[in-house]
């Protein structure tokens, strides 16, 4: 096996069918996922990236936006224009951010009447707006469908932005908990639809409690909640089986999890916990992409004190004058030196945090670092520019 981390990430992409990019929001997860899928396509794979909210300009430049919940193939001419040799195909599928719950209901309601009843229920409307996890669930369900379609041999999943890196893995289970049979059964009891008065006859205490809760919340609430669950119950049976199937898919040896992170995140303190939790779910961490790092300059002068730009000025004055053609104004040199010192200070912090992070990583998990380049990535050229960092010189 190659020893360079980037070559090991390349090996990982080559030897797996599903790559799940997990991590909290705002660390370049979408871009990383797209870049990996593009690389797979260049190597001859039929790759698809399942994504949530790509930057508009990236989607536009690939000619794939903004179609929700349908796979779209990037046209060969797009690659040709960028001068890229792509042996396979690159596809993208964007999850519709807002319509996830509606989509689930549309898809799984047994009859049009049941569908309309659910969509019109007041509790459903609140729920679909506020219950987190529908996106995660949809991503998982779509992954299952893409896999069983047999059309792709590399599926890269860009997980929805969450606060915690593990949220994506937990979402399907949380949804199952929420739709727990016991709760559902309880609410679809005939007595519930009749409202609390039926309970009151049965049991004095329960009746009292219900009356108190309803005083606080509003008359008739229980009947409505019950109606909601009753109409939703037709969807539940399928949910459980589907979640179970995709969970197995996530545990398949052909599936690999990559953590995408940045160097100033809380997640860096929690890597051991994270890795343990992933192992416990039998979805082990296979690699880490550390985005937006400030590489530390290792040459002579690297250990200069950030408060002493004077020393930097003294050392660079000569080379600067040669480049400038004459002596450089001291004020300009001073700005240059101060910026360098500030950057080095930040870079030292990044290096320390990453070193601590790596100590917590399970043995053998490769970590690649991508520098904090000053640009928004919004085209194929931008995506390929990440390849040397992510996948080494093999590209």
């Amino acid at each position: 096996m190659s020893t360079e981390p980037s070559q090991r990430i390349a090996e990982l992409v080559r030897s797996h069918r599903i790559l799940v990019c997990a991590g909290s929001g705002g660390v370049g997860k979408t871009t990383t996922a797209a870049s990996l899928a593009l690389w797979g396509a260049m190597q001859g794979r039929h790759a698809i990236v399942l994504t949530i909210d790509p930057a508009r300009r990236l989607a536009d430049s690939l000619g794939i936006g903004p179609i929700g919940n349908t796979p779209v193939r990037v046209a060969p001419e797009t690659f040709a224009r960028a001068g890229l040799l792509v042996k396979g195909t690159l596809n993208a599928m964007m999850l519709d951010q807002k319509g996830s719950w509606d989509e689930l209901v549309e898809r799984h309601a047994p009859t049009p009447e049941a569908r309309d009843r659910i969509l019109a229920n007041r509790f459903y409307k609140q729920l679909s707006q506020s219950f987190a996890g529908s996106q995660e669930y949809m991503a998982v369900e779509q992954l299952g469908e893409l896999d069983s379609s047999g059309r792709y041999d590399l599926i890269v999943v860009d997980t929805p932005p969450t606060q915690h890196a593990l949220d994506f893995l937990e979402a399907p289970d949380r949804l199952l908990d929420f739709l727990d049979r016991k709760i559902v059964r309880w609410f679809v009891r005939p007595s519930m639809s009749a409202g609390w008065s039926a309970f009151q006859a049965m049991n004095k205490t329960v009746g009292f409690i219900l009356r108190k809760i309803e005083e606080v919340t509003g008359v008739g609430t229980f009947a409505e909640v019950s109606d909601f669950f009753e109409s939703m119950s037709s969807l539940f049976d399928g949910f459980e089986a589907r979640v179970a199937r995709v969970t197995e898919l996530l545990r398949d040896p052909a599936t690999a999890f990559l953590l995408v992170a940045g160097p100033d995140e809380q997640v860096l303190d929690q890597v051991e916990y994270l890795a343990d939790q992933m192992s416990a779910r039998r979805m082990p961490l296979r690699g880490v992409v550390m985005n937006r790092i400030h590489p530390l300059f290792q040459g002579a002068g690297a250990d200069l004190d950030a408060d002493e730009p004077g020393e930097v000025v003294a050392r660079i004055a000569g080379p600067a004058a040669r480049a400038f053609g004459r002596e450089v104004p001291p004020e300009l040199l001073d700005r240059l030196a101060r910026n360098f010192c500030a950057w080095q200070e930040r870079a030292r912090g990044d290096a320390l945090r990453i070193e601590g992070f790596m100590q917590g990583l399970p043995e053998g998990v490769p970590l690649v670092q991508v520098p904090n380049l000053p640009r928004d990535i919004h085209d194929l050229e931008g995506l390929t520019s990440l390849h040397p960092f992510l996948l080494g010189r093999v590209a």
Partner: protein
Amino acid sequence: MNFDELLRRRLVFTVGKGGVGRTTVSLAIGLEAARRGKRVLMVELEGARGLERAIDEQRKSRPTAPELRRIGHIEVEGKRALEEYLGLVIPVRRLLKTVFSSNVYQYFVAAAPGLKELMTVGKIWYEVERTDATAPDLVVVDGPATGHSLQYLRMPKAAAEAFPVGLVHREAERIFSLLQDESATAVAIVTTPEEMPVNETLEISRGLSDLGLPRTLLVVNRVHRAPLTPAEIESLGGASPRDGDPASPDEALFAEAVRVADGETGWAELNRENVLRLAREVPIPTVRLPYLFTEEFGGLHVDRLSRDLAGQLDGKPSTEAA
């Protein structure tokens, strides 16, 4: 709007995409309010831990700062708030215990959508409206850390619709009208000047407008400053790698210095486009906080940003940002 005008409100609620520094900005506002003599209650929502940690860091890095004595902190948890509330409705303790341990109640709380969020906002207003000896003058809420910043602010309205009558309905309506009241509530939108956070900021801004909620302040965080102009970088030979190995360690150092200056200038230019976009699309009072190069971001940095934020609102030029 100067900082004292902001302080005439009783509640400041921060919203923004995860990872843009919302907690830092919340604390920055709280610190300055406390410096101006206000008793400030910093509120963290269920499950978040960052604010408490940041306040602890303040106490460690600036133990003698007098304003810290006027800063308090609570974490508001929806379910506990609901129980406190039911405690007012059902004064008999033994009965309360029965209610809370009953399946009926557990299932109801789990199933009623948004009830916990509603109770969270209700509890925040309870703190705002307290008048006892320890009552805060200002409540600053570090908003939810998910992409759904508006969820909590929307909840009272949603609840008023979901529960057509009853106590919750009346409370929800009252709370929502307080949130809409610009003289009582300030909403501070926090963002960084980058493409995706700005996209989300525009969405949040529209959402607030649609709900009739105040858009009081926009805080653009982590604004990079160009150390050199592009022309200056060019005059120094540019940032592209030079052919061959550098002739000396000093040459290598110089090349690196130009390279990182070019990087920073690049960030500053990218930031500038987004700052302009924000100015165009979200024309409300705006503060720009600088990106700070630090080995480790800590209590002293939050304090610096706090003074910068207040200074800018009071019309002083930023001491740090470009």
